[in-house]
């Protein structure tokens, strides 16, 4: 499911036992014309950790606001868990399929990527089915006269034929179901990205930034059904994904001097503090008048759909500080306390879907059984426990139950699952 599975499972990489002591991309063993891959067999636990964290935060953010919501990073700055998720997905996908691209061929890598895309697509359709069940239930059971207008959202149930086909085409996407379609489109573009990266990584990144700029300049978007647009515009969000891929394929190593410089650190800290202050004014409106009006007018709205530059830079600042203060050899990464997060991060597609489902279920319980802060906190916590438990079971399947098959088969299966998912 993740880097290590992939790498150890892939045909060239039999060195499962390699120690993860080597510095991340610095210790590049395999060299390609333009890009370098990190050493074989090492597992970047930090990626798993933060992806796991992103999955937990996405789950909490999908629940109605409650006590735990205050622990999610979106309350402390511009960016949120989605940025982490997409960046790490780009990183791991490039890591896994970049190797296939270099060592097998373009066709093989593309074939594997497409299989991965299919899995994500099926996961999306599965979530849509659950959503349909939920919304149909609400439509038939909820008749509060206060909300007759909001019930207009049920209108699409009058045309299930059209709606379902549009959902299969990824054009009809209910709230909270935006990340997987974005992911599917990004993964579909991955062969092209990798092929271009193999040629010139920096040019690829520049092209990606150009597309991002063009998206803003010419207001490009993906249309949705019945109208509107994709809530996460892939044309803008690709920047983060490509940047992740670029880092995985040697960019991070080449940036290591910039990342280590104190100037970068202080700029990052200053930016994060400023962002925190701005966010504070949203929650403490009394502070609002301390914000200069011209700044407000320039800054707002901070657009999530098109990955606002403020969000992107906020993520960069967070990442820069993380890389600096959380070295890859940090012993805490092996501590049992972080194990649940890492486990979840290692099976991200399954855990992501589970998180969306649990958020639906949590809403349902809050609405049907009982509300209140205590119940709310309980639902959040048990959701996280369920995510952990399922991640553990999946690991168990991978490590124990599936071992009975032929080794090559299991390895190939893992390899394909790995792609950043």
């Amino acid at each position, binding site marked *: 499911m993740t880097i290590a599975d992939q790498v150890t499972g892939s045909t060239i990489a039999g060195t499962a036992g390699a120690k993860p002591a080597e510095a991340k991309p610095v210790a590049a063993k395999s060299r390609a014309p333009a890009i370098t891959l990190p050493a074989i067999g090492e597992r970047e636990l930090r990626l798993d950790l933060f992806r796991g964290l992103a999955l937990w935060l996405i789950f909490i953010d*999908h629940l*109605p606001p409650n006590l735990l919501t205050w622990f999610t990073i979106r309350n402390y700055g511009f960016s949120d868990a989605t940025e982490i998720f997409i960046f790490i997905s780009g990183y791991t996908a490039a890591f896994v399929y970049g190797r296939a691209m270099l060592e097998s061929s373009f066709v093989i890598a593309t074939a594997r990527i497409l299989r991965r895309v299919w899995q994500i697509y099926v996961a999306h359709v599965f979530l849509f089915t659950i*959503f349909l069940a*939920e*919304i149909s239930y*609400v439509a038939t*059971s*909820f*008749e*509060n*006269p*206060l*909300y*007759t*207008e*909001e*019930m*207009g*959202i049920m*209108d699409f149930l009058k045309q299930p034929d059209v709606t379902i086909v549009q959902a299969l085409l990824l054009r009809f996407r*209910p*709230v*909270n179901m935006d990340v997987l379609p974005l992911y599917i489109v990004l993964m579909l573009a991955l062969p092209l990205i990798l092929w271009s990266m193999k040629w010139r990584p920096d040019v690829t990144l520049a092209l990606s930034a150009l597309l991002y700029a063009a998206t803003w300049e010419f*207001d490009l*978007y993906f249309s*949705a059904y*019945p*109208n*509107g*647009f994709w*809530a996460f515009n892939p044309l803008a969000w690709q920047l983060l994904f490509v940047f992740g891929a670029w880092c995985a394929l040697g960019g991070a190593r080449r940036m290591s001097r910039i990342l280590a410089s104190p100037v970068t650190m202080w700029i990052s800290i200053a930016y994060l503090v400023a962002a925190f202050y701005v966010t504070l004014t949203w929650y403490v*409106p*009394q502070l609002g*008048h301390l914000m200069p*009006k011209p700044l*407000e*007018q320039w800054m*707002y*709205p901070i*657009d*999530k*759909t098109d990955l606002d530059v403020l969000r992107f830079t906020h993520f960069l600042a967070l990442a820069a500080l993380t890389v600096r203060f959380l070295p890859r050899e940090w012993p805490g990464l092996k501590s049992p306390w972080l194990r649940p997060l890492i486990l979840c991060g290692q099976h991200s597609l399954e855990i992501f879907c589970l998180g969306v489902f649990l*958020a*639906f279920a949590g*809403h349902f319980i*809050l*609405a049907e059984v*009982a*509300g*209140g802060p*205590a119940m709310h906190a309980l639902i959040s916590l048990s959701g996280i426990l369920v995510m952990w438990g399922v991640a553990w079971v999946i690991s168990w399947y991978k490590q124990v139950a599936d071992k009975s098959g032929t080794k090559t088969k299991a390895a190939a299966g893992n390899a394909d699952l790995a792609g950043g998912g």
Partner: protein
Amino acid sequence: MKAKVLLSLILLCAGLVAPSARAGEAVPAAPAACELPSYLLTTESQLHKVAETVKAGKPLEILVIGSRSTTIPSSEDSSYPARMQAILKDKLPPAETVHVSVEIQSKKTAEEAAGTFVKLMEAKTPTLVIWQTGTVDAIRAIDPDDFRGAVTEGVAALQNAGADVVLMNLQYSPRTETMISAPPYLDNMRVVAQEHDVPLFDRFAMMRQWNDQGQFDLFSPSRGPELAKQVHDCIGRALAQFVIDAAHLGPAQQQN
């Protein structure tokens, strides 16, 4: 006297218990349920024309442009425009005539509604327009940029017609939170309000506050109109208070 003290004690206890209990069983009937933090009821933007009209003792014509959530089906008199009129009449000097009319733009997006404003303002010449919008746009997932453009145009049209404007945002609807994405529309209304120095009546935050504090159980699937009536009463009160504050109608213009 004793009975009164006892009663208020019981009510107080009920109020304290309400947040933890499943609301709906304990919806306080008294307007105490309408309590809100003061920042939700105040604004930096001003309603100059309302202030002039009231100070000159001229009749105050208010037009509420809304949608289906402006009214309660088959209980028009309990809807928030009617409640606001009653409270304003109560709070402003007795000589002041206040008239609130309602224009329902059912199932219209902000853009579609804004298209009707020029004609609408020719027909009626209100001093103050309270424009409640956003829900239909959120349901139909209109591009937030387009939505912002439409709200901007609408506000400009209303202002050009010589009226003060108050923007009112969406209802807080926890039951449909997983289906309707309100935040982009809330944010954009806030932006337009800021840019045009128009007071924004934050209905969403108020209703969420009531729900979180346990005054109202907005999850309730009840078909009866009681909850809707109480919520509208509170919104009407808050709106009246908000207008008085934004027009800087001091004690001289107020009854109490």
